[in-house]
């Protein structure tokens, strides 16, 4: 008996050692990218692209391809920006639009999320409004401006209505496709662990659907921002305060092309900045933590 016992322990010890070796060999090494590399690969290329665009622009102006009233010089646009900054109106104008856009987006989030969940999980609701919801995504939200003006007049309620009609379908659809793409294996694993019904939704379905949901949020923000600009341009009124859309419309009314260019650039920059500052990091963090992001 003694000899079999020692044989057993030898074998078992062997196993532990072997296993430790395998684990060490198999371990996935993760490396953080150094700041220099990030600057070189992520920051440099877009910066160069912007510089190139500015250079070509300046070149066209210097070559006098067309009259200055049709193509303002970059410096004229820059002067406009500096003026607004010195008058102290720049941040106010941006904030008027951004605060509207973000609160509209948050409202859309609060409506779109439960709606998406309902469509994704309740067959009847999906059959009833699923197609309408995805169809609404292809309707340009600017189409909602005229009815919204007729319903509410020229006020914030009308702006928010347009934002909601633009963003809610994106957010809801993002969640629906996120839920649809949850691997059935996760659902089965969840069920064997006892995660059924609401527990299953909370512990398995929602976290598994998060990447699709975030993609929907990103798109939802883009739609919010676009809808808001459309609403501000079409329905500008002194009562609404000066936002970026009104700035653009004012530029047109005053035949101030540098002002128009400035407004367009600001709209673009703010839209990109919100995406870069909020949504992209969120998405990258989620994907990275799941090993879904190579590099």
């Amino acid at each position: 008996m003694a000899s079999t016992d020692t044989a057993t322990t030898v074998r078992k010890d062997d196993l532990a050692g072997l296993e430790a070796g395998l684990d060490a060999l198999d371990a996935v090494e993760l490396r953080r990218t150094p700041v220099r590399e990030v600057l070189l690969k992520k920051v440099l290329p877009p910066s160069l692209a912007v510089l190139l665009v500015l250079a070509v622009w300046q070149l066209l102006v210097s070559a006098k391809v067309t009259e200055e009233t049709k193509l303002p010089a970059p410096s004229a646009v820059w002067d406009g920006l500096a003026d607004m900054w010195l008058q102290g109106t720049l941040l106010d104008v941006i904030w008027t639009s951004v605060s509207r856009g973000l609160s509209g987006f948050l409202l859309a989030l609060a409506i779109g999320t439960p709606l998406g969940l309902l469509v994704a999980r309740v067959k009847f609701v999906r059959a009833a409004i699923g197609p309408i919801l995805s169809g609404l995504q292809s309707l340009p939200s600017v189409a909602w401006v005229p009815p919204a003006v007729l319903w509410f007049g020229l006020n914030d309620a009308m702006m928010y209505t347009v934002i909601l009609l633009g963003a809610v379908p994106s957010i809801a659809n993002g969640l629906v496709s996120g839920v649809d793409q949850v691997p059935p294996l996760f659902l089965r694993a969840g069920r064997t662990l006892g995660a059924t019904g609401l527990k299953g939704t909370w512990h398995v379905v929602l976290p598994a659907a998060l990447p699709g949901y975030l993609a929907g949020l990103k798109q939802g923000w883009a739609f919010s921002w676009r809808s808001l600009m459309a609403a501000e341009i079409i329905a500008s009124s002194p009562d609404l305060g000066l936002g970026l859309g009104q700035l653009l419309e004012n530029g047109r009314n005053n035949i101030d092309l540098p002002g128009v260019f400035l407004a367009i650039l600001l709209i673009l920059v703010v839209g990109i900045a919100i995406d870069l500052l909020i949504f992209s990091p969120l998405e990258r963090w989620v994907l990275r933590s799941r090993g879904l992001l190579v590099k």
Partner: protein
Amino acid sequence: MATTLAKAAEGTAVEQTHAARIEHVSKSFSGPAGTQLVLDDVSLDVAPGEFVTLLGASGCGKSTLLNLVAGLDRPTQGSIATPGGRPALMFQEHALFPWLTAGKNIELALRLRGLPRAERRPEAERLLELVRLGGAYGKRVHELSGGMRQRVALARALAQDSQLLLMDEPFAALDAITRDVLHGELTRVWEETNLSVLFVTHNVREAVRLAQRVVLLSSRPGRVAKEWTVDIAQPRRIEDADVAELSLEITDHLRGEIRRHGQH
């Protein structure tokens, strides 16, 4: 530290005669091409603390049967009883949740089982220790190797504190060396916990390496074709002569079962 699993299994072993009882179970799927009978009158008992492997060619209905025992699907006819409650189930894919760390995956199972919050972390660490992954608590799933993932999946299955562990070809996707090691781990864990295991595989040697009893399932429809009791002392190795000898015998039967289908 005595395992609660072992205690639970011992406690009920006195009262219960089986960990799973499959009685005259048939299962058919209806599809566009008509109704397909996948399992036909399958009866099988797993005794408390017993290790049974269910062996059969691909597509013979092994996963179907396991899903029925797990309660993920219902039999067309017959009945299945698992007196020890909802069985734990391990898949060929690890099925760990990638949004949670290894430790949190286990804690989720503990939470769903109703363990109070304060006890979850120590219990999760004990279970990771049990599969020799003491340092893996904070690791993300994608940071673990295939073998480590299956060990975490085993720990998560054990976290359910179920008396019956169902395993559906859990090592089929692993390389041979890792699989060998995991065979050793599974045997050790099974001995330490006194779990009942119903282990599905199409690999004859794996079946013999692990089991006390090997049940061969025929194909189309799946029926219990033959059973073998494996009287070889653990720890076995897959290369052992006794294992090889019995494997040869079983392989001949399996081939015979498969050959029957080519004869018309």
